């Protein structure tokens, strides 16, 4: 695959610095969101943290929602949990629709 191109899927990993740079969230905001459970990195400390690459999609949405609704991190974490659930349910609905006879 083109090294200049990243497919934002769970199988690829990105570091905290990259997530900060690309998402528009600050390092402190991301660390707080991790504390609230909105993101679940692998690694013991922020310097070693890696995130699934699709966390960038969620983090960019978080940056937009934070800015556009002036949300503080705890509310943002709650909203992201609901958003995650909606994404999962939409994927399930799509899969079930595929299995229906027309």
């Amino acid at each position, binding site marked *: 695959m083109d090294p200049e191109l990243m*497919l934002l899927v769970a199988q690829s990993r990105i570091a905290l610095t990259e997530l900060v740079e690309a998402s528009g969230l600050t390092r402190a905001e991301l660390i707080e969101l991790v504390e609230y459970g909105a993101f679940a990195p692998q690694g013991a400390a922020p310097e070693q943290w890696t995130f699934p690459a699709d966390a960038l999609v969620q983090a960019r949405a978080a940056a937009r929602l934070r800015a556009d609704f002036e949300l503080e991190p705890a509310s943002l974490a709650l909203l992201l949990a609901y958003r995650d659930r909606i994404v999962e349910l939409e994927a399930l609905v799509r899969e079930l629709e595929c299995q229906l006879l027309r």
Partner: protein
Amino acid sequence: MKYKDYYAILGVARDAAEADIKKAYRKLARKYHPDVSKEPGAEERFKDVGEAYETLRDKEKRAAYDALGRHRPGQDFRPPPDWAQHFGAGGAEDLGGIDLSDLFASLGGGFGRARGFRGRDMRIPGEDFEVTVHLGLSEAARGTEVALELAMREMTSDGRIVRTPRTVRARIPKGVTDGEKLRLPGKGGPGANGGPSGDLYLNIALHPHPLFRPSGHDLYLEVPVTPWEAALGAQIEIPTLEGRLSLKIPAGSKAGQKLRVAGKGLPRPHGGAGDLYAVLGIQVPGTLSAREKELFEQLRAASGFDPRGHFAG
């Protein structure tokens, strides 16, 4: 330059208090925010709402906007002669080709999430772009290249912001699927004063296919079979993305039953492929010939099969 009525976009009076502007913005943001709304055209509408709020929430920008005077939305207009000097938009005397939002972005004070230009001396990152790319299933399976026309913000040597059309080519790797996103670092808008270029994000959307329905990298294919094929079993031919293959229908198959054909779905980017699921649908002839009718009647008389036996008692 085309006029936009920011007050009308937010649905507030021109003398609205800051709190009312904020409240109106929040109501509209709740309705049209692209991360929340499913309404068609919500994203475009939210851009206008966000642009209006970014300007009217800031006292200086609001004063500068008010000083432009009142015009009809979409009307071509020019700011008053001393407007640019008065509001710190130096170098903005010739405003013919620029967008109202870019004009206010050049006044400083930030431009929301667009990561726009904020001044003349600091390193300013370029704008990120997010574009939906529509692909056919075959294109997604084998990979393709797309050319995207993007209107990129650029700062001129005299500090003005202009939109310049640019063509960006992006190679889509094989194996992307519906709803996936790609990031192309540095392929967004150019930075200013040595700032890095923005990124380009591609949202993959697959065109509906007349036969195959994708779910992740798996494909679903509705396969109609006759009642006797379902009852007796059969060897039939089905299409795949790579040509036809032979599929064994087991005796005693039911409508809605899924038969998995391993590895015949969409390829995965890092190797392997999803599966193809044949979903069986049992079809009966719309009109029976005399002979068919006779045979079905014989079957009815001979068969003890009761699919509704579990309703009894």
